[in-house]
Structures are given as C-alpha cells and as structure tokens.
C-alpha cells in the first residue's frame, strides 16, 4: 500500500515549490492513473517516489507498506520493491544491456536474501520475458538503449520491470512517443504484471493508454495538488473537456 501524505516538494537548492500538498493512497493491487497539464508536477512526483535527490521534500511523508521511504536511497527503494519506468530512458554506452540487467537483478536478489541467478538461469529468464515483449535478444547485447527507437526504449523499460518484479510500479508517461502497435505491446506487458500483490501508479498525458491499462482510480494533478479524483470515467471526461477548468483554479 502506498500512502502519500501532504507531500510538499521543491527543487533542491531553489525556492520554487512544485508539489504543494499531495494526498494519495493506493491500496495493494490497485492501479491508479494521474493525469494533468504540463508543468503540473506529475513527473516530479514519479521521480520523488524513486528517490531522486534533485528534489527535496519540505513537508509530508511517503509511506510504502507502512514504512516511510523518505530516508531511503534509490537503490534501497528498489530493493523495497519500487520501480520507476522513465519517460526518457537513459542510454548507457559501453554497458551491455544483458550485463546491466543481470547486475541489477542479482543486486536486488542479494538484498532480498535470495541466491543470485547463474548465467544460464538468467539467460533463460531474459529470453522468456523479452520474447513476450517482442524484444530481440540480440538487441540486449548492445549497450543499454543505445540506438533504440523511442518505442524500443519503452519496451525495454517494461522488460526491466518484468525481470525485477517490483511491487510498486511507477510508469512516467510510458505512452509518450509510442505508435499504436508499441502501445499495445507495452500495455500487454504492463497488464501481464498486474496482480493483487502489485501496486501501480500510471502517469499519463493522454487518455488512450487507459483504454488498454484500465485504472481503478484516476486523479488530476494540476498546480502541484490533486484537484479531482474519480473512477476510470474521469479520464474520458477529461478527454472531452481538457484541463482548462484546472488552469483557472487558484494554486
């Protein structure tokens, strides 16, 4: 269960507040969507959940399964089950995709007190998961994300998610830059990971992703606060009316 309580966030070493009191609770197994206009703080929320130190929490708390994660470093949050699928996944020249995946997976397994996977075990797992996402294993021999198209990078993020088996998945505008086919493959991949033990927060600009990944609740984030919450129909309403009404509301 994810509980965000009165969260205030600003950019480290600057005065401008970005999140101005976010209250959000996502029960275990639920999928919530956050939509909102540009500059509302959606990506900031995603990055703060993952522990990026460019942002500073000035007030409030984030509780994951009852425990505050604010003092936890990014790799500790990952070990606790948090995964952020980046909006702009990074390229790491010189580090082969398979090396990266194996290093991450075994680091998590060690932290969780599990045995590391042997190379054959790992390769078997990767082949299985990458096939489901239409990712050619040859691509994973190249450096991480280097030379990948936007759609390939997003699929690669979902592959990481499938391998690392997080319990809190935060998807930051996963649908941006995807064509119809890529959108379907990514959505299928995410849906395959839905489970009563897995909580998901989907940040999106456009409603169409939510046709494929149907959320339990939808929230509108504008001017640093959650302005409205509702069921999946809220997304369709927003598609009709846009975000104009939230632009007029005072922060």
């Amino acid at each position: 269960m994810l509980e965000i309580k009165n969260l205030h966030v600003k950019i480290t070493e600057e005065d401008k507040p970005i999140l101005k009191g976010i209250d959000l609770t996502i029960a275990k197994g639920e999928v919530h969507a956050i939509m909102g206009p540009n500059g509302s703080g959606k990506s900031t929320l995603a990055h703060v959940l993952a522990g990026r130190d460019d942002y500073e929490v000035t007030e409030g708390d984030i509780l994951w399964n009852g425990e505050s994660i604010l003092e936890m470093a990014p790799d500790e949050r990952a070990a606790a089950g948090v995964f952020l699928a980046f909006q702009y996944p990074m390229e790491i020249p010189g580090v082969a995709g398979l090396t990266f995946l194996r290093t991450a997976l075994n680091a998590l397994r060690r932290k969780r007190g599990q045995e590391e996977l042997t190379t054959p075990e790992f390769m078997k797992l990767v082949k299985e998961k990458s096939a489901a996402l239409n990712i050619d294993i040859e691509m994973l021999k190249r450096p991480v994300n280097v030379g990948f198209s936007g759609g390939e990078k997003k699929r690669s993020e979902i592959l990481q998610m499938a391998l690392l088996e997080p319990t809190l998945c935060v998807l930051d505008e996963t649908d941006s830059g995807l064509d119809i086919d890529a959108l379907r493959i990514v959505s299928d991949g995410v849906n395959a990971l839905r489970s009563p033990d897995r909580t998901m927060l989907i940040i999106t600009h456009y409603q169409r992703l939510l046709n494929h990944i149907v959320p339990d609740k939808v929230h509108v984030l504008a001017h640093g606060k959650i302005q409205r919450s509702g069921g999946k129909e809220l997304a369709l309403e927003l598609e009709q009316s846009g975000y104009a009404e939230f632009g007029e509301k005072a922060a």
Partner: protein
Amino acid sequence: MSVAVIKTKAELSFAESFDHVQDRLPGSPAVKQARRSAADKFAELGLPHRRIEEWKYTDLRSAVKDALPVRVGDVTQMTIADVIVALGPLAKFETHRMVFVNGRYRKELSSADQLAGLEFEDLSSVLSSGNENAAGLASLTARDDDAVLSLNTAYMTDGAVVRIQAGAELVKPLLIAHVRAGGEPGFTAVRNVIDVGAKASAQIIEAFVSLPGAAKEGQANAVTQITVGDEAKVVHVKCAADTGDGITHLSNWMIRLGRETDYAGFQLTQGVSLARNQIFVAFDGENTKLDLSGVFLGRGRDHIDTTLVVDHAVPSCESRELFKGVLDDRSRGVFQGKIIVQQIAQKTDGKQMSQGLLLSPDAEFDSKPELEIFADDVACGHGATCTELDKDLMFYCESRGIPPDIARGLLIESFIGEAVEKIDDETIVEAVMEFARGWLSKT
C-alpha cells in the same frame, strides 16, 4: 651564454652514479662511449622542469626528489609461479614471453622460443657483442636534447631486441614482461628494439608489473624503439600496472611507420605515482593508418602525463588518437597531443580526442592539443572534454537496485571501455579491463 643551474639532489645523484657503475653496464667500447656521452648530456641538461614548454605540466626536477640506487645486475630469486602472479591477467593466455626482473633478462622464466619468423635476443647480449648497429641501435643518441632518453642510454641494462621477419604472422602475442621485485627500491633502465618486417603481422605486449612484496618505491625508465615495415600490421600494447606507493614510470615509444602499415598502439597506466608516457611517431611511407589510444587511472596524488608527437611527413596517412583518464582524490592527468602536418603531407586525415573523468572536486585534468599544419588539403580535428560521473545515469542505475559503488564501476568501465576496445583483440581487451577493474575495486 648558459646560466649555471644549481643541480638538485636527485640530478647530482643520477649524474654521479655513472662513474661508479659504468664498468658493470653491458656493452662494447662503442656502446660505452655512447653511454658516456649520454651521461655527460644528462649532467648538462638535468631533469626537465616546467619552464621547458613540453614539460610545463610535469616538472620532473621538482617531482623527483631522490634518485633511487641504479640497478646494474640482479639476482632476485624468482620462479615461474611468481611471474604468473605478477603478470595477473596477462598470464591467462598464451604468449611468447620474455621476462626481465629488475632490468635483467631471465631466460629460465621466459617461454619465447625462436621460431620461424620471430628472432629475439636480450639487449645485454647484443650490446656486448658489438652488434648494436645491426640491431637498429644506431640511434642510441638520437634526440639528444631529451634528458630522460639520455638517462636511458647511459644506464640501460637490458631489454628485448626483436626482429619479426618479413611476411611472418605471429599467432601468439609477444609479451615483454618487466617485473619489479625484491624489497630494495631501485632505478631500472630498459630498452626494447623491435623491427617488424614488411607484410608481417604481430601483437606485442609490454608489461610493467611488480611482485607482491616488492619495495613500495621504484623508478623505471623504459624506451621502446619500433620500426614497422611496409604493409605490416602491428598491435602494440603497454600495461604499466604497478601496485606500489611511490612508483615513477618514464616511458618513451619511438615509432617509425613504413608505407601502408596498420599500427595500433595502446597504453594503460595505473598504480604509479608519477608517470610520463611519451610517444613519438614518424611516417616514412604513404597510406598508413596510425591509431594511438590509452587509459590512465589516478588516485591519491598520482600524476600521469601522456605526451604525443605525431609527425605527418608524407601524404595520405591517417592518424587517430583517443586518450581517457579517470582521476580521483587529488590526482592529476595530463594529455599533450602534438600533430605536425608538413607541407608535402597533403590528404592527411588526423583526429584527436582526450577525455578526463573527475571523481573528486580536487582532481585535475589538463589537455593541450597542438596542431601545426603546413599543408592545405588536410582534414584535422581535435577535441577535449572533462566531466564528472553523470548523475542522471547514476540515478538510472540506482533506481534499478544497483548500489552506488557498483553503478560507479559500471559507468567508469563504460567510459574507459571506448578506448580499450580500440585494441583489435578481445583477449587483450579483457586483460586490460581486468587490470582496470582491479584498480577500481581498491577505491
């Protein structure tokens, strides 16, 4: 008019030692004469200092506080098992191995066999035989304004004199291993002379390593002269991977390339407190490809200087330079890349890139490109960067559960990997990366 310069303790010691040891240094009368001239030259020049432009970042006169005792003979006990330990990653694959301990050839520790295409002899024997000119040592006193070279000529005890026959293709690399051992610190001068025949193909690895238990301090002055015949292909790698604390490594590569040759040189420098790697390249023939790359790793107060002079004296040759340094604590990396394109060297294609990765706010990287271009139909470019570890990449790795120290290691390996992978042999690439990983793991 020359102003009398007060010599430092180290300069006086190096100059005065010569009289005491000269009779024990190998060589015919002609060699002895060359040594004498070189010693006199050194006494006159002293160690280079920062008011000499090429040495502005590396003031040897102030950096070298003491002259360690000059080594002439050596009887340090060593076994093949010791050699394997000292060589580390370089012992993991088959090579023609010539082993020198504290500057002296050890046939019993070497594995190189004379075979069709590969002739070799230890320098000490060649110098004593009076055959030094035949072996290409005629240029003993070349570049006589270089004090470090003069010091080498005066004191060289041994090295590998190698001739790879025309057309020969070495299946295994030639490994020239200089091992530092024993509890007594010393100054070692070695010189390799390598002649690669026309259309031959060879991989040559030089290693400067030490045996566990070796003195913390040491000074090495190494020269390698290499001539590459027309249409030959050479991969030439130097791994200076010591593990002391107070190691000085002064190295000179002097390279002459014939027509249509393919020469790729790579240098790894780590575990040394003070290093100056000089590489001089002269093109004797057209349509030749030169690739020089290297990685230097510094921590503490290490100072690692790589200085290149590449002289395009003929048309249509290509040169590429890629040097990367990783610098931690208060260490300092220096790259000086001089490229001369003479007036007749039309259609020269030259590119140079030097990159520093600073792991601490007190580390420093100095890069000085120097392009002197006298021809008008050439393509020459250079670049230099200096960065820290990319915070976004670190966050990306950590958000996937990779702990910061492992993430750092991955990103540093990725940084240096680009230069290491210029070595056109996966086995040697892996050995170099293993040396580097060993250095990284000691953070």
